[in-house]
């Protein structure tokens, strides 16, 4: 078993807002993160896959192909977008870092080769705040 990690980044706007709550309740729970006109972040994404090394290539997976999957299915739909308004796979989901990490996991897994498992999606919202998701 070996692990391979790839770093990517994207910049996006969002707000934390529960549409089932009043404005007051949203302000109380989410504070300035509920600002009506959004705010934004430089997100740093760290994706780790795991599996056995292929004898023919010496690779777990071609890192360039992993990068292409992350670009096509994660960064391209998210970069310079509004997470609340523009991203189909976040529609109806509260745009917290936790929920975004799980959505990114779901975006990646269908596209990995059968010998490779996704191990961890680590997502930094700021240099000081990050979440990790291991698929369960």
């Amino acid at each position: 078993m070996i692990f391979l990690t790839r770093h990517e980044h994207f910049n996006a706007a969002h707000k934390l807002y529960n549409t089932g709550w009043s404005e007051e309740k949203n302000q109380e729970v989410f504070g300035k993160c509920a600002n009506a006109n959004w705010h934004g972040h430089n997100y740093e994404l760290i994706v780790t896959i795991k599996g056995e090394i292929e004898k023919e290539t010496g690779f777990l997976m071609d890192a360039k192909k992993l990068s292409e999957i992350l670009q096509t299915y994660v960064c391209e739909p998210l970069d310079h977008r509004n997470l609340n308004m523009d991203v189909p796979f976040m529609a109806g989901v509260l745009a917290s870092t936790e929920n975004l990490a799980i959505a990114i996991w779901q975006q990646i897994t269908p596209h990995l080769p059968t010998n490779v498992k996704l191990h961890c999606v680590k997502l930094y919202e700021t240099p000081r705040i990050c979440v990790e998701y291991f698929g369960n």
Partner: protein
Amino acid sequence: MSNKVAVFRKEHFNAAHRLHSDKLSDAENAATFGKCNYANYHGHNYDLIVRVIGEIDPITGFVIDTKVLSELMRVHIIERFDHKNLNLDVKEFKDLNPTAENIAMVIYTILKQQLDNRYDLKITLYETERNYVEFPC
């Protein structure tokens, strides 16, 4: 020998913005600013470094009390910019494109008004880890 010393203070704020010029057509805006022009905004973690140069006060030993500088930055910049939409929520950008260059100049103008004239001020603003600007230069 000069007893001028540069004092630096770092702060950060997170904000949404988009790049758009009213002087350009939609097509020209898209061509000029690319994905930074997307209609529904995107955002950044901005890192702000303020440099104040001045002579050391012989009584206090300070060029400027960093607590005072921090408070000026917090009240006049961070509270007004953090978790805001620069285009919609910050009046200085009502008719000014919020590029990193213009944000740095706006921050300079705001802080310059708050500081004694004896100080020399410089703003460094990181929009991302890879893109940053300085004003004045």
